């Protein structure tokens, strides 16, 4: 158990509404990540954070924003949800070793449906 939780676990919303997903860790990892999983695409990186207030874009960042005001929390916001953002969202945490790499530990996921 990597000490990582996501909330909510399930959410149904309507097109055009704002949505915020929360990732919370108790492991004090420096890096936090948001991925989305879709059939035929595997997992794709949306945004990541390498420290408090330090974030960067991933492969599929359009339509998403993130914030990290504390080490333990990483928020993903859909400013105006669209049906194409219906997906399962996973948060991950990790701390790269001196080589720059490390395994990432994943949360249980949030299933988001945009009607």
């Amino acid at each position, binding site marked *: 158990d990597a000490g990582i939780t996501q909330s909510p676990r399930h959410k149904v919303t309507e097109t055009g509404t704002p949505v915020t997903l929360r990732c919370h860790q108790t492991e004090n990892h420096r890096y936090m990540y948001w991925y989305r999983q879709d059939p035929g*695409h*595997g997992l794709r990186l949306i945004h990541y954070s390498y420290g408090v207030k330090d974030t*960067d874009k991933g492969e599929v960042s359009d339509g998403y924003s993130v914030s990290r005001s504390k080490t333990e929390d990483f928020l993903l916001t859909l400013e105006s949800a669209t049906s194409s953002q219906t997906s399962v969202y996973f948060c991950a945490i990790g701390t790269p070793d001196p*080589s720059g*790499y490390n*395994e990432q530990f*994943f949360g249980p996921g949030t299933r988001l449906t945009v009607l």
Partner: protein
Amino acid sequence: DQQVKQNSPSLSVQEGRISILNCDYTNSMFDYFLWYKKYPAEGPTFLISISSIKDKNEDGRFTVFLNKSAKHLSLHIVPSQPGDSAVYFCAAAGGGGGNKLTFGTGTQLKVEL
């Protein structure tokens, strides 16, 4: 452009036999590779990793092989057990900071009794 490819969407193996899952990549900057296992309604779980300076890494029943010249890696599970039935993702990192992972599309492994 799929930089990490798992060309077999599914694989069925008998209990006790070897499972071999394959993964190909196109980005020569990748130099760290991982395998994750995922059960339905759960997050991916890390299984094993390998750095590009090695060609093999073992952990119990799991062995990962890396062929850099072919840009190919494989995961061997011996012996396969029913509890190994899951979706397996390979992932790669490299060529930039942040330890960002690029995932394949996954292979559904079914281990039959």
